[in-house]
């Protein structure tokens, strides 16, 4: 089912592991080179920059190529029909298969781009088809479209191990269940949060379980994506703000901000769930769970602030900043020697952030928001105004 050479995928994992051991100093460079010789990989895998370049160029070429084809076909009425979209999708798919088979591309930017394009083109064609059908209500159409999107992205993920299509597949699966539930029961909207909670929790636990299966080892990255998406949905389906807003948008009486029934339940869910994630993340030493939990703490605070203005924003920022620094500092002190299986840092551990020097770019963003060489007397120095801009844009 997987289009890539499985032996190379296996060897690639070994090489990556060996490299991390070398960086940490457990094995020396000669041993690393020997391991590489013994487990060769012949994929074409360029570095991230070339990958980004190839990705952009592939998008350009497909856009232009399809444009040229459409121009040539524009004489007939063909391009308005969904068939045309499917036709372009098939061409893109053929190109994708060809480039992988003949040039051994693997996450090179070219295959990443083509996989997304194929998914988009099939979805567009199907969307046009649905738009032309009559006699169905909006909910049914959305349901059918979600199912179609799920099938197409699932198939692409199974064959090409693309993490983005994996994420889209899970998301569209949840959407399909949501619309189906909404169409079947009259109280669909009111009970949908609970359905989604159960569904996403089941998905998450399933992903955790199948993630350990040795026969699915090639799908490990995709399964991690499933975990991330379902964790986010677990939280979103019980978050007070999201439930209320979705109820308003999709419900019969639009734009009424009435309090949710079972408000106490949703509020405790909103506040406590991130803490539960962090707790279990630490307990199980699960990096995904821990990080998602930390991010969701921010979401919980933001949700709370949206309803209760206990403190002005700047005071909140200051206090939160002091707390964050304090927690970090205390943790560093506490983990000066490894404790309970936790360690502050391992030698040779490389952070993506360091590699791309993103941090220095984000910092520069803050200064630039200071008013530049003011032209008017009254606009001098915007006081502390530059700090605020930076904080909100960086994340």
């Amino acid at each position, binding site marked *: 089912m997987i289009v890539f050479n499985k032996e190379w995928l296996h060897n690639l994992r*070994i090489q990556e592991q060996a490299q991390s051991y070398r960086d940490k100093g457990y094995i020396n460079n000669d041993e690393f080179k020997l391991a590489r010789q013994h487990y060769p990989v012949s994929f074409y895998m360029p570095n991230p920059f070339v990958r980004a370049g190839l990705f952009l160029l592939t998008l350009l070429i497909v856009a232009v190529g399809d444009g040229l084809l459409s121009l040539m076909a524009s004489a007939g009425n063909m391009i308005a029909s969904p068939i045309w979209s499917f036709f372009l999708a098939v061409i893109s798919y053929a190109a994708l298969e060809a480039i992988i088979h003949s040039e051994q591309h693997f996450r090179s930017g070219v295959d990443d781009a083509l996989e997304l394009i194929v998914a988009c083109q099939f979805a567009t064609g199907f969307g046009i088809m649905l738009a032309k059908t009559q006699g169905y209500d909006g909910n049914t159409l959305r349901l059918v479209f979600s199912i179609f999107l799920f099938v197409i992205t699932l198939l692409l993920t199974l064959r090409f191990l693309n993490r983005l299509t994996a994420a889209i597949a899970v998301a569209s699966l949840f959407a399909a269940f949501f619309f189906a539930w909404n169409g079947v029961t009259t109280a669909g909207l009111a009970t949908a949060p609970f359905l989604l909670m159960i569904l996403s929790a089941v998905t998450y636990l399933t992903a955790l379980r199948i993630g350990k299966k040795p026969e699915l080892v090639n799908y490990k990255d995709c399964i991690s994506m499933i975990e991330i998406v379902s964790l986010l949905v677990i939280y979103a389906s019980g978050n007070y703000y999201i439930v209320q807003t979705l109820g308003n948008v999709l419900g019969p009486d639009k734009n009424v901000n009435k309090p949710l029934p079972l408000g106490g339940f949703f509020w405790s869910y909103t506040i406590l769930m991130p803490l539960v994630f962090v707790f279990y993340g630490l307990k199980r030493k699960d990096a995904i769970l821990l*990080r998602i939990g930390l991010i969701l703490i921010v979401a919980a605070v933001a949700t709370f602030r949206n309803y209760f203005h206990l403190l002005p924003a700047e005071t909140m920022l200051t206090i939160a900043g002091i707390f964050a620094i304090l927690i970090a500092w205390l943790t560093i002190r506490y*983990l000066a020697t490894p404790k309970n299986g*936790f360690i502050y840092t391992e030698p040779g551990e490389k952070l993506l952030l360091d590699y791309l020097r993103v941090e220095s770019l984000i910092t520069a963003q803050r200064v*630039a928001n200071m008013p530049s060489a003011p032209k008017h007397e009254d606009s001098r120095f915007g006081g*502390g105004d530059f700090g605020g801009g930076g904080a909100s844009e960086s994340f």
Partner: protein
Amino acid sequence: MDQWYESLHSEGLLSDASYEKIKLHEKAGLFSVHWEIKTLLYIGVLLLTAGLGILVYKNIDTIGHQFVLAFIALLVIGSFSYCFKYALPYDRAKVKAPNTAFDYVLLLGTISFLTFTAYLQYQYQVFGSNYGLATFIPMVLLFLTAYYFDHLGVLSMAIANLALWMGVSVTPKELLHNYDFDSEHIIYTYLLLGILLLVLAFVSQKFDLKAHFKFSYQHYGLHVSFISLLAGYFHFYNSIFAMFWILGLAGLALIFYADAYRSRSFYFLLLVILYSYIALSSLAIRMVTQVENVGGLYLAFLYFLGSGGGLILLLINLNRKLKSE
């Protein structure tokens, strides 16, 4: 798969010592929270400085703001004395931070310091209406801090402040969102800034003065130079001078293509190639639009198909070449 080192060991490819080290590591199963802590520290610094800045700004002319100011001053003094105390001695080469917190303490001190000077200017007009001086002094201090403590983040802030002093705002976001390329004056200022930064990049490497700062200088310098050259070309689109801007761009591209190739920097290679491609395409479009029927459109499509494909092959070949050498 997890036990691959077992087979490697039994095949004799892995020494006993390394094998034992790996086994010990696997058994310990330590979980590193490095990423989490670093992110938390960074967010903390950003939130704290942002919050304090707004606090001062909003409470100006009330009694409370004296307290906030004192707090900011304390932060600056505290952070800098910490940094002076723990910093490793200055060196022309790269100096490692003595501990993880160091970089963030310095960042906290520097940003708080900026807030403080901004306040002094706002409230007491320390620099009067001399806005050049008001941005020049923080800039000099930022550069000194960046070099003395060897901090890339502060260096980026210093570069941004340099741009501020020269009257332009230079960050990736600002470049994309402020489309004020129409004034000749701004284009020249940008170009000057870009070239200045590229010279600084060259100097850093040539005289081995914090050679690792070259990346930041060159990163900003290339973006600013290329964008201002392109802007100049479009500004003078209908005049004969447009040619000089394109020639300038071609020259810059050639120089830094060679430089990136030598230093094997894929990032800069990609930058040079993509900016040159934009220039080349604008020339091609200019020619194609001379054709006054649908044939021109076909030509444009064919150009993009051919050139895009060629560029992909070029990138793939470059990647292979640089890797194998």
